[in-house]
């Protein structure tokens, strides 16, 4: 057990160091851009994973929280002259409010009905952003949004800020899902009736999952707009929600590492396939299909299965315990 933990920590340190050095080793701005987007999608996929993977509430509205965070941060800094960090906080609060707004009325919905409600919610937010001309400038979008900081000039600078943020959020999520609260969420995922008779307040924990997920997605939105310095409703279609969900599923629902692998994997996969031109989305679709058929529990599910097979082989030679 102890060795296992040591190996885990070592692997983690290696990954962190490699990540910190990445923008130095990989000088091409384009690949640095992908790494920044990987961090943003890590936040999005990890937060959706809390709702879908740990609490079992299938949502197709996650891009709405992302959009609310992006626009809130953009408007607060642009119109009210707030500093970027305050815009970020504002984005998180506003997205959290929307999390409560979506979580509360959908409490009684399950399965496909919940999917449709969240889908509708995502569309409502996008259409409001598109049509509230006086506030959002509609399809023209908002331009000239404040950069993260005056010193943040290169993509590497952004990466060095966003990567630690992603790490901190993932660590906090890890704490959350392994806490008493996390156990309640998992119990709701496994069996709502049983969870309820155990004394778990379903309404409270479901809304909590939606709200925490929304707050993190709002943060991602803020990080996004202060990076690209432009935002329009086109960035938050339903397809974006689906993309985030695909990252969670391909990486492995209900695991901490899964959405990270899904986020970086898909960001890089999609870009490296640009050479395929119009065949790109076809190949992407086929790749996803094959991955899901071969690894129905996502990448982490496959890792778990392989390692448990290896472990069982090890156990066979060891004396039986207990």
């Amino acid at each position, binding site marked *: 057990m102890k060795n296992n933990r040591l190996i885990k920590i070592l692997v983690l340190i290696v990954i962190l160091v490699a990540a910190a050095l990445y923008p130095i080793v990989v000088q091409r701005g384009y690949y640095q851009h992908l790494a920044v987007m990987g961090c943003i999608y890590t936040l999005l996929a990890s937060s959706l994973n809390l709702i879908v993977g740990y609490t079992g509430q299938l949502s197709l509205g996650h891009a709405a929280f992302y959009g609310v965070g992006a626009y809130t941060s953009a408007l607060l800094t642009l119109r009210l002259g707030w500093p970027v960090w305050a815009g970020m906080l504002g984005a998180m609060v506003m997205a959290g409010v929307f999390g409560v707004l979506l979580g509360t009325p959908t409490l009684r919905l399950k399965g496909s009905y919940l999917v449709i409600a969240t889908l509708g919610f995502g569309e409502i937010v996008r259409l409001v952003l598109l049509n509230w001309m006086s506030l959002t400038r509609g399809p023209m979008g908002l331009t000239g949004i404040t950069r993260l900081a005056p010193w943040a000039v290169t993509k590497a600078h952004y990466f060095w800020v966003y990567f630690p943020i992603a790490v901190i959020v993932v660590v906090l999520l890890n704490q959350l899902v392994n806490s008493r609260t996390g156990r309640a969420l*998992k*119990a709701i995922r496994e069996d709502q009736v*049983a969870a309820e*008779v*155990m*004394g778990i307040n379903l309404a409270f924990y479901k809304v909590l999952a939606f709200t925490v997920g929304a707050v993190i997605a709002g943060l991602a939105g803020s990080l996004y707009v202060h990076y690209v310095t432009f935002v329009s409703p086109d960035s938050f279609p339903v397809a974006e929600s689906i993309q985030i969900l695909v990252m969670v599923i391909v990486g492995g629902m209900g695991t901490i590492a899964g959405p990270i692998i899904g986020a970086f994997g898909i960001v890089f996969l999609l870009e490296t396939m640009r050479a395929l031109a119009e065949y790109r989305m076809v190949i992407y679709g086929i790749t996803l299909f094959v991955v899901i058929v071969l690894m129905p529990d996502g990448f982490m599910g496959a890792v778990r299965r392989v390692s448990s097979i290896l472990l069982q082989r090890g156990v066979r030679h060891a004396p039986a315990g207990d």
Partner: protein
Amino acid sequence: MLNIENLQVHYGRIEALKGVSFSLAEGEIVTLIGANGAGKSTTLKTISGLLRASAGKITFMGRDITTLRPSAIVNMGIAHVPEGRRVFPKMTVEENLEMGAFVRKDQKGIKEDMDRVFQTFPILKERRTQIAGTLSGGEQQMLAIGRGLMTRPRLLLLDEPSLGLAPILVEQIFQIIDDIHKQGTPILLVEQNAYLALQVANRGYVLETGSVVLEGDAKDLLNNEHVKKAYLGE
């Protein structure tokens, strides 16, 4: 300790309970028997707060609990072991039992109760790290009961514990129900297997289409002509 007065429950416009009254005293096993759809499970679900009563009153230990949330009712000491076992399939046996103690904070007491559950169900101790979804039906029923006991209940509600189990396991489960009762936990038992239920219970109520049609000592009910004909297959 438990008093149900004129309980009415509706599913939409359908009346599932039409004014059910019964009581359970400290130290008793009381059974509700009846056919499918008679309202037995509905009664239990309403007591534990999963369903809302449209009229009537439920008092537990002198307190009106009719409108309390399920979590508050668990806190008051009513544990509900739901129909169809409903263990958490992807959690281990041990994690399932820990979920049973979700509303408790006394780590030491939880540990003691876990040991007690393992004493009552040695098979669960053997399988403590096994994923609950891979247990057999009988083992899952034991786990469901054990999980209910982890709340350290003052009253245990058991919904169809014999459902879908092989006869030998049914007998084992009823033996365990008897043991739990002897250790001092009162039980409200809902069963379709009227014969076994009445053998283990002190008193019984017969439910038919949402109303109590008969009540009495379990022994008397076992000899009652109507019960014999309708529920014991004689």
